[in-house]
């Protein structure tokens, strides 16, 4: 055995597996990680400060750019916070449209997360393309509803910007009919795959107590066995009228986090089915002025985004723009425990662990 000494390696910011520009300062002994420190801020674009220059309506398209893989959920959280601040009542139809859009977005986001995680593990291309095939269908639906494929600007204070077009229903029903069979296929393809199991089972175990301590949320927390879901714990929109399960893992390793997303896609499908059944006719937007001037005060609204609890904290001083606009970004807070997950693993596992907590750097740095 050769005597070795620890050395430092920079992983990122320009590393293909760091999902953007995450820089990890790793202290290695051979291939084993002794210490790890995430260095953030390479994608900082000062979006929170920028929002303080904008009117409340203008904040919505900027939120699209934070978590660009689940822009609908970002719109929804921001709109809920503004509505709470200004006391706007949302029509019933709009809440159901919001839930349908939010769950479609959850499926699209999880598809991308699964695909890139598998790509990080070395399943180069094929599974990613399979998942993107499904995601494209959802993006086509979104393009038809609101005119954009990535940055929707659809959910607004007071409702949604446009009603669902009549062509929406056959297309979404076709997707709902076809997707479960595809999901079964993917599960068969991946669940028992020996390579995937070897790479993920027992890797990056997030203990239950540590996950709660680190305020982790979303699939990352639920994989550790904590059934915490904002949709159940503090229902927003019409989630209290819909029936769905919250899947919970046991070990909290990468494999559980991977499977959580597969299960959650099934639950989302069931939610969309129910919401389409219950979708009432009527208005889709409350009359809201172009420039909202809420009373001085503050409001916090949180939603379950695909990555965890996405919260918006808005402070108003009575003016046309928010005095303070704070985002509780789930990716950022899930990253805080990264050191505890990485220490003791090999460098190759670092890629899998970072991929399995599903970060989007646009939201981490904001």
């Amino acid at each position: 055995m050769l005597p070795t000494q620890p050395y430092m390696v920079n992983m990122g910011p320009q590393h293909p597996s760091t999902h953007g520009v995450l820089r990890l300062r790793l202290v290695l002994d051979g291939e084993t990680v002794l210490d790890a420190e995430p260095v953030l801020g390479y994608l900082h674009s000062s979006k929170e400060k920028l929002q303080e220059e904008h009117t409340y309506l203008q904040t919505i398209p900027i939120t699209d750019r934070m978590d660009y893989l689940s822009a609908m959920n970002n719109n929804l959280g921001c709109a809920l916070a503004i509505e709470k601040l200004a006391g706007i009542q949302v029509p019933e139809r709009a809440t159901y449209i919001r839930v349908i859009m939010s769950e479609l977005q959850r499926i699209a986001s999880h598809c991308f997360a699964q695909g890139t995680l598998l790509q990080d593990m070395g399943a180069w291309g094929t599974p990613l393309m399979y998942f993107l095939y499904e995601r494209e269908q959802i993006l086509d639906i979104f393009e038809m509803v609101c005119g954009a494929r990535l940055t929707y600007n659809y959910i607004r204070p007071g409702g949604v910007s446009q009603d669902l077009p009549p062509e929406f229903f056959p297309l979404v029903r076709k997707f709902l009919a076809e997707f479960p069979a595809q999901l079964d296929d993917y599960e068969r393809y991946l669940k028992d795959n020996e390579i995937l199991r070897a790479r993920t089972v027992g890797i990056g175990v997030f203990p239950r107590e540590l996950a709660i301590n680190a305020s982790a949320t979303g699939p990352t927390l639920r994989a550790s066995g904590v059934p915490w879901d904002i949709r159940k714990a503090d229902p927003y929109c019409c989630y209290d009228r819909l029936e769905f399960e919250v899947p919970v893992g046991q070990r909290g390793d990468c494999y559980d986090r991977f499977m959580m997303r597969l299960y959650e896609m099934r639950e989302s499908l069931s939610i969309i089915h129910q919401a389409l059944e219950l979708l009432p006719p009527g208005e889709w937007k409350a009359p809201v002025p172009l420039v909202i001037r809420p009373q001085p005060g503050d409001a916090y609204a949180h939603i379950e985004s695909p990555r965890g609890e996405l919260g918006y904290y808005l402070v108003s001083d009575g003016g046309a723009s928010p005095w303070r606009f704070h985002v509780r970004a789930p990716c950022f807070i899930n990253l805080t425990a990264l050191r505890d997950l990485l220490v003791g693993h090999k460098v190759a596992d670092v890629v899998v662990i970072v991929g399995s907590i599903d970060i989007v750097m646009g939201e981490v740095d904001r």
Partner: protein
Amino acid sequence: MYGLGVAKGMLVVLKRLLRRPVTRQYPEEPAPLAPRFRGYDFAWVEERCTGCATCAKACPHGCIEIVTHPSEDGRYSIDVFDVDTGLCMVCGLCVEACPYDALYMGRGFELAQYQRGDLVAHKEDIANRALLSAYYRTPFQEQVGTRENIQGFYQPIKGLEKAPAAKPQG
């Protein structure tokens, strides 16, 4: 047994192999755009525009520049109506803000130019392009939203019959 999972997975791959590909050979075979698609080729109806600059105030990035002066007939005549499509993030707030339905999103998405200044769409570029517009915001406009009906809908506006033929869009 080791390898059984991989074998089961490969059956799925074989199944996928027979699926019809959905890839589009983009420049030769353009993808169909949705009727509500928000693109760059802004369409602006000069006869409807009063120069109130509501669109410019609604824009989060301030990419619309409007300069007006009062004319003899009591209206404002518009000297400058520039849309900086290099700054624009196609959120569509300007179109929704316009109280006179004078501005529309277009269907363009191929934005490449040789000069940064060419990204600014001037008044002459965007006027009389309503036939190409794509983003309808009122339910009434949704109802009349087919291409033939729009031509009928806009017929009363003078000057529009000379609108240029729809240029090939990507």
